[in-house]
């Protein structure tokens, strides 16, 4: 069977092969010519197409071909010497571009505004790199997640007038995350980065910002954008668990192991009633679990490492290690404790942390309540109020 399949496949491919060579010309025609710069990017379909879990996901533009990369093909073509030259030239370009952005430029920076309660700062894109325990000064154990901000740059700003915000109050800021080789990317995608003058990125995402918090494309964002003691919301895609039963998916109790149970230990039990004679929509049943986008809100930032650009965020964050997440200023308690929040947010760098203005920060910024590992061990005071 397999053999006949191959034979048929070969026959089919022979036809398509000749077709390919004939049509390759047209493909190449598009490819060779410098097409006009297109500002809109063709929408790609997202990975999941499940009916129940279909949610508006960000556009997935970076689709590498894992089987055999363009770089491999190129390396087969060129001598090692020439290939090395090409790769070096990319590196140099990247460096020169990044350096050019860091030094003062001819064109003037964008106007800066003071923070107002209506302002909304941008978030950052970060990578989840792991979890570890930490302790407060009262000896309470915390579990923190480490989020690293890697080569996060502003790519473009869509002003309020052009954005699709119905209230016309917020603009869009596109951020890129983790520089990568251009071999993996399409020409169309690369053109966006050429405009901003930054090296191409693996992941891009959009953030809504208020008008006064707009940042010039090309500006790097650091972990110091957030400060210890602040609360953030983290947006990520949860780990795909596949098709799961009700006990794992919805935390049902299951049914007893013995006492006359037949094949009903992990099943949901009754799902309908005699009254309406059908299963109501929305009933909790087995199905695909995970692989959906989730917000985890109100996570405290305990510590910020400015050297490696790491945020130490309280608790858990959706997604795998090495997965990307979006980190925002938290919107919780906005109405309840508005006054307190305003005091807090007003002290943050606005619209973001600029290295030249604030000067060099300390390597580690700690929250006041957090135990530092340099400090001596914790001592609890006795009732008499003296230390032992």
């Amino acid at each position, binding site marked *: 069977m397999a053999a006949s399949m191959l034979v048929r496949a070969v026959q089919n491919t022979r036809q398509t092969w000749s077709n390919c060579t004939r049509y390759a010309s047209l493909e190449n025609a598009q490819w060779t010519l410098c097409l006009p710069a297109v500002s809109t990017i063709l929408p790609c379909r997202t990975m999941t197409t499940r009916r129940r879990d279909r949610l508006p996901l960000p556009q997935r533009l970076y689709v590498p071909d894992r089987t055999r990369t363009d770089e491999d093909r190129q390396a087969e073509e060129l001598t090692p010497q020439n290939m090395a030259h090409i790769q070096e030239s990319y590196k140099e370009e990247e460096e020169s571009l990044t350096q050019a952005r860091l030094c003062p430029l001819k064109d003037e920076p964008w106007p800066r505004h003071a923070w107002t309660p209506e302002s909304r700062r941008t978030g950052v894109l970060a990578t989840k790199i792991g979890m570890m*325990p930490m302790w407060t000064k009262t000896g309470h154990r915390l579990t923190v997640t480490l989020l690293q901000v890697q080569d996060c740059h502003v790519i473009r700003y869509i002003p309020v007038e052009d954005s699709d915000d119905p209230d016309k109050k917020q603009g869009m800021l596109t951020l890129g995350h983790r520089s990568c080789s251009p071999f993996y990317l399409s020409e169309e995608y690369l053109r966006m980065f050429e405009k901003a003058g930054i090296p191409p990125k693996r992941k891009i995402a959009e953030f809504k910002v208020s008008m006064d918090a707009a940042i010039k494309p090309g500006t790097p964002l650091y972990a110091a954008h957030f400060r210890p003691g602040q609360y953030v919301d983290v947006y990520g895609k949860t780990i795909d668990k596949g098709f799961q039963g009700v006990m794992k998916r919805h935390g049902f109790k299951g049914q007893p192991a013995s006492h006359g149970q037949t094949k009903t230990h992990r099943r949901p039990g009754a799902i309908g009633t005699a009254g309406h004679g059908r299963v109501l929509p929305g009933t909790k049943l087995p199905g695909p679990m995970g692989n959906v986008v989730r917000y985890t809100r109100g996570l405290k930032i305990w510590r910020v490492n400015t050297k490696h650009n790491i945020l130490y965020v309280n608790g858990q964050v959706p997604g795998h290690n090495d997965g990307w997440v979006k980190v925002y200023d938290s919107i919780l308690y906005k109405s309840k404790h508005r006054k307190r929040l305003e005091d807090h947010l007003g002290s943050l760098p606005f619209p973001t942390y600029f290295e030249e203005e604030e000067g060099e920060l300390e390597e580690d910024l700690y929250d006041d309540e957090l135990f530092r590992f*340099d400090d001596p061990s914790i001592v609890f005071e006795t009732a008499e109020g003296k230390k032992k």
Partner: protein
Amino acid sequence: MAAFGRVLLRSRQNLCLRWSSSTVEAAKPAAAASPDITELTQGQKNKTQRFISPEFIIPRGMKADFPTKNHMERMDMLRRRSVIDIPEFYVGSILSVLTADPYAPGKYQQFVGICIKRGGYGLGATFTLRNIVNGQGIEICYELYNPTIHQVQVLKLQKSVDPHMVYLRDALPEYSTIDFNLEPVQHNPEDPVPILDTKVILKPPPWYWRWERVELQGINREHMRENHLSQKRLDKMDKHRKPWMEFDLMYEYDTTQVEQDVLKDMQYFENAVRRKKETAEKADEEEKT
């Protein structure tokens, strides 16, 4: 019980043999010994090399092994170690631990016991002490880097032949009864670590785990077989043996690279501390002048 069984089977001591260029330790020349001292036998311990505590070695096959994360975690561990002295100790050593406790009278608590288990890695590393007080067995699991720990003292440095000594729970009480006023036994750092090779006699079942199925050296197997095991359990014993495991090369864990990274980080930390001191001294001198 079932939960413990899972932990036991998953623990890396049981499944992953450490390779680290010291796998073939028995016949290896002493000069080529690796820095992994936890795995070396007495005769080959090279004192010129540094001791690396086992929690520095990340377990094999971490989901995503990020060098930055490991570096940050190690830096914190080394910072804590520069404040309190965490000595070299093994499973089988007798330790005395002093911790701050808000609920204890005098706000401090001291406990003495034999270390039966070490677990976790990085900042989350733990060790478990066991003792019998007034005929009641007590085990306390300490977090090694918990800031409430004030002192960890090794009363008697010794090393068990087994990766853990949880079987002491089912052993006669004399093996885990330790006097709280035990005098510390001095150990010459140049001498090899003494091996704890007592064969423990177990109490009659029920047990915490089916010890006849686990190949642990510290259990008196002959006594167990003659006194405690029924014919049914004896028959099942051989069924659970896995003699091929030591030849399945895929389960080996080469830790040489990890050890090198750890040593590099240690060096980095020392340099950073030295530089900080020098700058502080300079600043002081300037102030004086």
